[in-house]
C-alpha cells in the first residue's frame, strides 16, 4: 500500500458501497465490522452510521476504515483490485461516530498495475528473505535461461546465418567453420547479456526500473537474488573466455584477419555497458548494436568460412543491423524512467516521444529501402525481396509504439512484434540467399 493524500483518499472511498471499521478492542484483539458511511473530502471526515453499542470503539480512540473492491471473473479469479485505508480518531456521535481522517494509504491496480506494484516490493521482499535465511529459487535451467536472456539469441542467429549463406553463394560454405563461428558468436552474445546486467545492477539502472517486462529491464536475476553477483561475473567471464578461445582457434586456422573482427566485436560488446566508455549511456547503444549484430557477425562468419574479406556480407547484413538496433530502441522505451534516473542517457531518454516514434519510422523504412536498393544494384539476390512481406508487421510495430508509448505493459505485444520483425525479415533474407544458391 502507498501513502495517499487524505482528501484524495476520502474522495476515492466515496465510490465504495460500504466500509470496514477496525479498532483494537478492550481485550487486545482487533475488531472489524462492515459499516454504512458518508464522507466529506473537504472536511477530511467520514461519518459512520448506527452501530451496535456493543461494537463501538471508545470515544477518541484511533480507528481505521478500509474500503475494498474486486470484480469477480468466474473461471479466472478477479480483477479491478483496489482498496483505501483511512486512519484517525473516532468521535462518538449519537448511535454512530465520526472519524477525523489524519492518514491514508491504498492501492488501485488501474493506477499502479500489479506487476509494478509487486516490483516495488522487491527490496522489502529481499530483506525479508534475508532475515529468514532463505533465497528465492528457480530450476537451474530457468535460472540459466533468465540470466543469459537466451531468447534474444535470434539477434545472433540471423547475422551469422547471413554470413553463412553469403559464403555459400560464393561456393565457400564450410560446415565446421560455420558452426565454430556460430558458437563463438553465441558465447559473446550471452556474455554481453550478462555483462550488461552486471553493470546495470552496479549503476542502479535495473534497480530503478520498476516496470520491467520480459523484453526490457534486464534479466532481474540479480535484483531478485536468484543469482549472486559472483556467479554472474563467473558465468560472464566463462562465456567471454569461450568466445576468445574459439576466436583464436579460428584465426589460427582461417586467417589472422579474423582476429581483428573478433577484437572489434569483443570491444564493442564490453564497451556497450562497461566503464569507461559505457556507450549505451551516451546514446550510442543503437549504432553499436547495429554494428555488432550486423556486419561484425556476418563478416566474421563469412571470413571463418571463406578465409577472406568481402563487402558482400556487410551489405547483406545492413537491413538486419537496422532492425536489431530498433529492437534495442523499442525495448528501451519502458526503461526510460529508470535509465534516466541512473544517468543512462539512451536515445529514448534523450528524445521526445514524437522524436522516438519518428526515429522508428525512418529507420524501419531505411531497412526496407536497403533491401530493395541492394537488389536493384545487383548486390543481393532478387529472392531476398521475399523479406518485404514483413512490411505489415513493421507498420503494426510503428502503430503500437504510438498507441502504447506510455504504458510498459500495453507495449509488450509491440516489443514482441518488433523482435519477430527482425527474426522474420532476417530469416526471409537467408531463405532468399538459399533459393539463389540452389536454383
Amino acid at each position, binding site marked *: 500500500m502507498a501513502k495517499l493524500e487524505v482528501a484524495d483518499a476520502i474522495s476515492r472511498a466515496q465510490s465504495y458501497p460500504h466500509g470496514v471499521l477496525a479498532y483494537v478492542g478492550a481485550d487486545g484483539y482487533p475488531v*472489524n465490522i462492515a459499516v454504512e458511511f458518508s464522507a466529506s473530502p473537504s472536511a477530511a471526515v467520514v461519518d459512520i452510521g448506527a452501530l451496535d453499542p456493543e461494537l463501538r470503539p471508545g470515544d477518541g480512540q484511533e480507528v481505521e476504515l478500509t474500503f475494498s473492491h474486486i470484480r469477480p471473473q468466474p473461471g*479466472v479469479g478477479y480483477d479491478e483490485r483496489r482498496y483505501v*485505508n483511512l486512519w484517525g480518531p473516532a468521535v462518538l456521535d449519537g448511535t454512530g461516530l465520526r472519524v477525523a481522517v489524519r492518514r491514508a494509504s491504498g492501492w488501485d491496480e488501474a493506477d499502479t498495475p500489479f506487476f509494478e506494484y509487486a516490483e516495488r516490493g522487491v527490496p522489502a521482499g529481499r530483506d525479508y528473505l534475508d532475515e529468514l535465511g532463505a533465497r528465492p529459487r528457480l530450476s537451474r535451467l530457468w535460472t540459466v535461461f533468465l540470466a543469459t536472456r537466451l531468447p534474444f539469441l535470434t539477434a545472433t542467429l540471423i547475422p551469422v546465418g547471413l554470413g553463412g549463406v553469403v559464403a555459400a553463394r560464393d561456393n565457400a560454405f564450410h560446415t565446421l567453420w560455420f558452426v565454430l563461428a556460430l558458437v563463438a558468436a553465441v558465447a559473446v552474445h550471452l556474455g554481453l547479456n550478462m555483462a550488461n546486467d552486471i553493470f546495470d545492477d552496479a549503476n542502479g539502472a535495473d534497480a530503478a526500473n520498476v516496470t520491467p517486462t520480459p523484453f526490457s529491464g534486464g534479466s532481474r536475476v540479480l535484483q531478485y537474488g*536468484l543469482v549472486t553477483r559472483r556467479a554472474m561475473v563467473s558465468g560472464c567471464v566463462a562465456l567471454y573466455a569461450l568466445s576468445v578461445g574459439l576466436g583464436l582457434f579460428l584465426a589460427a586456422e582461417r586467417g589472422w584477419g579474423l582476429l581483428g573482427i573478433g577484437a572489434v566485436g569483443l570491444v564493442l560488446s564490453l564497451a556497450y555497458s562497461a566503464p569507461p566508455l559505457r556507450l549505451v549511456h551516451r546514446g550510442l547503444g543503437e549504432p553499436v548494436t547495429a554494428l555488432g549484430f550486423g556486419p561484425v557477425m556476418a563478416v566474421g562468419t563469412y571470413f571463418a568460412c571463406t578465409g577472406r574479406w568481402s563487402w558482400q556480407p556487410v551489405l547483406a547484413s545492413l537491413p538486419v543491423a537496422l532492425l536489431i538496433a530498433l529492437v534495442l530502441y523499442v525495448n528501451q522505451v519502458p526503461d526510460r524512467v529508470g535509465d534516466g534516473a541512473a544517468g543512462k542517457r539512451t536515445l529514448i531518454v534523450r528524445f521526445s516521444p514524437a522524436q522516438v516514434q519518428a526515429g522508428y519510422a525512418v529507420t524501419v523504412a531505411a531497412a526496407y529501402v536497403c533491401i530493395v536498393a541492394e537488389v536493384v544494384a545487383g548486390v543481393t539476390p532478387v529472392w531476398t525481396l521475399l523479406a518485404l512481406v514483413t512490411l505489415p508487421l513493421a507498420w503494426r510495430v510503428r502503430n503500437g509504439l504510438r498507441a502504447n508509448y506510455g504504458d510498459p505493459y500495453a507495449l509488450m505485444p509491440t516489443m514482441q512484434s518488433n523482435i519477430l520483425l527482425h527474426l522474420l525479415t532476417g530469416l526471409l533474407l537467408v531463405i532468399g540467399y538459399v533459393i539463389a544458391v540452389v536454383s
Partner: protein
Amino acid sequence: MSNPTPLLPTPVIELLDVALVGELTVIDESGRPVTYPLIPLSDGNVIYLTSSVLFSRKLRHIKANPKVCLSLTDPVAIPVEPFHRATIQGDARVVEEDVHEGWERLLPMWGAKEPAIDFFLKKRFGIPLFFERSVIEITPHRVLWWEDGRASEPARVYELAGVS
C-alpha cells in the same frame, strides 16, 4: 484438510468457502489496526491466508502481535444467497519454514477460488519473489455473525472455546 466436525459455525464456513476477499486486520508496532484485503481459505477449523514476501509488512506485524481479526463483508466478493456477514477474531501464526513450496499445500483451495493462479504459477520465473510466500494460520476463538448482513444490528456471537 477436510474435517468431519468443523468447529467454525456452518454459515461462516459457507462464507469462507466462496469468499474471494476477506479483510484481515492486524495490529502494527504503534498499536494501531491495519487492514489488508486477502483471499481467505479454510478447512472449517483454521483460516489460512498467504502473503508474498514482497508484501511482508503484515507478517512482521503478526509476528510481533498475533491477535488478528478477519471480516467477510463484501457481497460482490462473497457470492452467497441470502448474504450474511461475519467477523472472526483469533490468534495468527506465520508459517514460513519453506517459503518456496510450503504454501503450495493450499493451492487446491486457492485454485478453486482463483483458477488463474495455476497459470501464473507455471510462469513463476517471471515473478519469482511473488511465489516465495508465507502462510498465515488463524486459529479462531470468537465469531460475530450477522444473519441479514446488517452489522448495525446485534451480532450472534460464537465463542469457540474448544479450538486449540
